[in-house]
């Protein structure tokens, strides 16, 4: 097993997340896509840590932990916003939230 495989897996995961975030109509699906991309980022952290010359510094691990914490905060706030928007415009569709359009 080489680093290539892990990075390729992570790239594919990122692409899936990006496609979901770009094409899906429901805001929650967009959020799911973003979470997938975050997961890909974390996989990269861990992969580079595993293959690094100084794994005992644990840098990748700590970065991944912080990244997970940030992702959790982002999900909480993002979903709260989606629920609030839904309450306002009765839709969770990203296309319908266009009140700020000039």
């Amino acid at each position, binding site marked *: *097993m*080489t*680093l*290539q495989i892990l*990075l*390729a*897996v992570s*790239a*594919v*995961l*990122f*692409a*899936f*997340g*990006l*496609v*979901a975030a*770009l*094409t*899906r*109509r*429901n805001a*929650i*699906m967009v*959020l*799911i*896509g973003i*979470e*997938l991309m975050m*997961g890909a980022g*974390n*996989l990269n952290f*861990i992969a580079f840590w*595993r*293959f690094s*010359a100084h794994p005992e510094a*644990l840098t990748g*691990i*700590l970065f*991944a*932990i*912080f990244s*997970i*914490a*940030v*992702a*959790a*905060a982002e*999900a*909480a*706030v993002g*979903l*709260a916003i*989606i*629920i*609030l928007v*839904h309450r306002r415009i*009765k839709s*969770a*569709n990203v296309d319908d939230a266009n009140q700020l359009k000039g």
Partner: protein
Amino acid sequence: MNEFLQRLNALSWDACSQWLVLIPSGVMLLAAAAAAALRNLIHAALCLTLSFIALGIVFIALGAEFVGLVQLLVYVGAVAMLIVFAILLTRPSDLAGAKSPFAGLGPVGGILTGAGLLVALLAFIFSSPVAKTALPPAPVAPVAKIGELLMGSYIVPLQVVGVLLTAALIGAAVLAMEDKQP
């Protein structure tokens, strides 16, 4: 006797670690693809959960046991449940009447963008000499050391993350609070 069992354990671990990474990776990618593509939101969320679980297993198999468990705890225990809650709370207008699962721009451009990015990334990954590093011996990441680092060198980021999470908690509560005057 004890040494015999220990030797056994070490042997078994080396033999299966590569497959312990690759098989969950495959599962994770399949689940992620399903999560991105499925029309039914709940199914998508459940596939996302499966993908997170598989990702956690990949982390554990790569030796980052703590991160893997945190990943499971945070994503499966909290984020997935939040998403599911949000889906159920926003369901009535959306699950039934959606004409197309895709946004108004249509899927083609998005998929093309994603594919383009994937091709670019893969080209880099497969041409880079860094990525050809062979697998070094398994590092150890003892929890105690992670804790020491978090409370030592990384104390400031830790505090900042604490503030961030508190702010997110309060912010989410305030955002989702019922309006007193409708």
